[in-house]
């Protein structure tokens, strides 16, 4: 896993929900496809995504092979204070990727 895109609004107002858009590069191999010589390609997907706001988990998702490659997830959270958003994607191989985004709440 490498390469994540995270988009948060430039202006975030205290007490109001804002949208967080995330995308991570991952093949999301379903495990249902076969390679050129007929062998089954083993499943390898991002099965878990979490987002923590200043250390507290505010959103999570359990994903299945029906999620498209390079999984995109967008969701909302209420702005409480300035700080850090920490995003974690975990795949079938147990590899985890973490991205941190600093936000400033006006």
């Amino acid at each position, binding site marked *: 896993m490498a390469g994540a895109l995270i988009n948060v609004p430039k202006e975030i107002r205290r007490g109001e929900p804002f949208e967080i858009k995330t995308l991570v590069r991952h093949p999301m191999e379903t495990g249902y496809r076969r390679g050129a010589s007929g062998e089954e390609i083993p499943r390898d997907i991002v099965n878990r995504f979490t987002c923590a*706001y200043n250390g507290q988990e505010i959103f999570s998702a359990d994903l299945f*092979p029906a999620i498209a490659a390079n*999984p995109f997830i967008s969701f*909302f959270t209420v702005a409480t204070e300035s700080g850090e958003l920490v995003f974690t994607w975990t795949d079938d191989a147990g590899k985890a990727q973490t991205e941190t985004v600093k936000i400033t709440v006006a």
Partner: protein
Amino acid sequence: MDRHPTRRSLLAAGAALPAAGLLAVAMVRPARAAAPATMEAAVREFVGEAAARQGRVKLEIPPLVENGNSVTLTVSVESPMTVTDHVKAIAVFNEKNPQPNVAVFTLSPRSGKAQVQTRIRLATSQKLVAVAQMSDGSFWQDSADVIVTLAACLED
């Protein structure tokens, strides 16, 4: 000792092979195309004893998609998202992909707005269902039909 397979180990392997093959077929077949019944079972597993009522949930997906490899799906739920009344989870299910589950999102009062968006794969034209679990224990659902002209899972 294991440099040459013994007659016994060969026989055992020979006997195990067809059995393993049969088992694999039996396990893979139903999974290859989740029938509507499989989706109902998956929804049942999520809602448990409760009944999922129609309403409050809005599942948005294009009615006609050309490419099933990446289809934008949005689920929003009418909820004040307060500590006493909020959406706890949103689950999405499909009828005819190899597996009935698509995703389960966990929300909290801190979400502020009960709306999630993602991109999914669709193996063929089918029905999708989104179910929301509320903090009061009730379940609400919405469904949508999609026609897919180029399916996912076919390209190499």
